[in-house]
């Protein structure tokens, strides 16, 4: 099990191979369908984004509400392919890591290789367990989107697997 600190460095990304089990510690941002649509539309218009994604890792998640006493509600990954339309643009702008679940299309894999980035898979449906590794969250933007808003997560030993590495090796090829 490899321990990785966020934000990711190019050197760290080079050591990651598809299939590696890793534990992530540090900060990541969150965003899923609705936030991606807004960020993408701003990119298309050439406008500034409300969050600096350069060097960031983004987690595709829409958590359940937190019970009192919890930092976050259950927060497992959502299906990544729905972000495939937007991901290459964000990668070209400097996004380095993505965390989600399931396969990506060839445009995303090409953009991962082109930008020396990485895609991690977390276990879908292990939301209560994964939430134990999320220690703190704070809002960044799009709070009107509720569970789909963009937040910053501080994670410790967040469990996932390298699904697509910077060379384009893909764990989802059977």
């Amino acid at each position, binding site marked *: 099990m490899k321990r990785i600190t966020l934000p990711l460095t190019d050197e760290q990304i080079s050591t990651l191979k598809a*299939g590696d*089990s890793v534990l992530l510690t540090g900060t990541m941002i969150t965003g899923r369908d*609705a936030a991606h649509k807004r960020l993408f539309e701003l990119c298309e218009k050439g406008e500034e984004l409300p969050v600096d994604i350069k060097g960031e890792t983004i987690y595709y*998640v*829409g*958590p*359940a*509400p*937190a*019970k009192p006493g*919890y930092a976050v*509600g*259950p*927060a*497992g990954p*959502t*299906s990544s*392919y729905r972000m495939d339309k937007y991901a290459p643009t964000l990668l070209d702008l400097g996004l380095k890591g993505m965390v989600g*679940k*399931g*396969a990506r299309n060839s445009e995303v894999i090409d953009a991962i290789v082109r930008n020396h980035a990485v895609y991690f*898979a977390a*276990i*879908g*449906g*292990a*939301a*209560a*367990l*994964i*939430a*134990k590794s999320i220690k703190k969250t704070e809002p960044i933007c799009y709070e009107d989107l*509720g*569970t789909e808003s963009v937040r910053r997560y501080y994670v410790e030993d967040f*469990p996932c*697997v390298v699904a697509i590495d910077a060379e384009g090796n893909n*764990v*989802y090829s*059977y």
Partner: protein
Amino acid sequence: MSFRKIKAETVTETVRKLFMDCNYYIGDDIMNALKSARETEQSEVGKSVLSQIIENDEIAAAEEIPLCQDTGMAVLFVEYGDKVCIDGDFEQAVQEGVRRAYDEGYLRKSVVDDPVFDRVNTKDNTPAIIHTKIVKGDKIKITAGGKGFGSENMSAVKMLTPSYGVEGVKQFILDTVRAAGPNPCPPIVVGVGIGGTFERCAQLAKKATFRRIDTHNPDERYASLEDELLAEINKMGFGPAGLGGNTSALAVNIETSPTHIAGMPVAVNICCHAARHKSAEI
């Protein structure tokens, strides 16, 4: 003719409890299947994923928190006795139960009002999808489940025609599961509806995902088809979380209905390993 009076509030409270319970406590049939799969899974990663899913489901039950953040769109199958009289509006009573469960139970509100243009969250997870069947008697039986959309999106309906035969049915089911691949949170539960009309077979497929997975179709021809398809799916190699292995599905449940002389519709409703449903009788 005498009617049994049931308070609308009783319906609301029953629905509230069903949705909270199904999101916190995975069924013992699913838990047993996950544990036996951990014994037979050949991939080390697959075993580890199954252990983490089991641990996740134990945490959710112990702490009474949702086992998945996608607490689903609320779906109910209601068998409504023809001797029941509600002191109010049954539909509203059910929707109020859903509203309370998702609010008081810290469940995620995942429903948007307009599907194409506005997509604004209704903020209380209503409206629920309610399938009502009038039956004889003075009771109301409700089976409720939260259906996550990671797997719902991987489902499909096809209007097969009679000459396709059982081979055509098998091929469509396996093609749908293969196309879904790692996306619907395997190990999955595959609900299949065969027969009826376009909409009836889809409804049957949903109903099949709400059936316990330690049961078989009572017709032994369909029961053996369930076993055969499960074995085929588990050869596909997706494995737990799609990270490889021989546990891609926990069960295939088939439900059937009479159909038209020209038709053989088939619906495949895929459900993730968090196959959540609970039943109650009022």
